């Protein structure tokens, strides 16, 4: 675990993160986020967590970034104009973010964390065993959460069904119109 590798990865992560928050083109911002997440995957690999690196590339870079690009494309009119990302209040936000970083860095500097290794570094097999034994309940609850999120997202974006118009015969008019289209 070389210091040089860590420095390079940290530079990649922070630099691309700056581009994410400063880019004027929305698509570029999403792609820079992909670079940040790839850098994070490299950091995970340096931290002896190769499984995490793989999952990060699969779900984040493959899933979230794609989803975000869909989100940008669906909510924009693409008529040759760049999808601009508006920003405002940059000065105050810069002061706020700098203060946040300075406070966190000071706390870390004054009280350097003392941590002792209590167990060998977990391999992927250890991860699987822990996930399906000790953390089984949380794992299952998480799958319920994902299901709820999917159902919630679908319910939110789905358009309302057209109200069925009752005809005097009691048969919904929409059905009858549809049937007449099928059998002319």
């Amino acid at each position: 675990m070389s210091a040089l590798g860590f420095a390079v990865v940290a530079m990649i992560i922070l630099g691309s993160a700056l581009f994410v928050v400063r880019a004027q083109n929305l698509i570029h911002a999403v792609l820079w986020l992909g670079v940040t997440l790839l850098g994070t995957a490299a950091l995970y690999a340096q931290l002896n967590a190769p499984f995490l690196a793989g999952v990060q590339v699969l779900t984040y870079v493959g899933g979230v970034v794609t989803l975000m690009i869909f989100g940008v494309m669906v909510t924009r009119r693409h008529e040759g104009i760049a999808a601009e990302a508006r920003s405002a209040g940059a000065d105050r936000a810069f002061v706020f973010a700098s203060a946040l970083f300075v406070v966190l860095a000071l706390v870390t500097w004054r009280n350097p964390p003392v941590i002792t290794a209590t167990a060998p570094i977990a391999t992927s097999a250890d991860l699987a065993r822990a996930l399906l034994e000790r953390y089984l309940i949380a794992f299952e609850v998480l799958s319920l959460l994902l299901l709820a999120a999917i159902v919630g997202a679908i319910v939110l974006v789905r358009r309302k069904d057209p109200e069925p118009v009752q005809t005097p015969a009691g048969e919904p008019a929409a059905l009858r119109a549809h049937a007449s289209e099928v059998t002319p």
Partner: protein
Amino acid sequence: MTLSLCILLASALLAIGAYGVATRKEAVPLLLSVELMANAANILFASFGHFRGGPAGQIFVLFALAITVAEVAVGLALVMLIYRRHGDTALDLASEARQ
């Protein structure tokens, strides 16, 4: 690479994400900035897990990943709703939700 350096990296990433959340006025870039902040938390979990050993840190990252993906799905659904209603995704338009 020490734990302090990892914490500093995560703090810087968190600050950058907070800057983005404070400046962006549209929904999708705001979601991107929130992703940055969540990523900073994941880096912390992974580095503590690395220096302490054992699977707990990595397990936390896996759970946080899944939760973040769910959050992105619901967030993008809300973005779609705002866009369908107003034809734009500026978040000021969503202030009517207070009423």
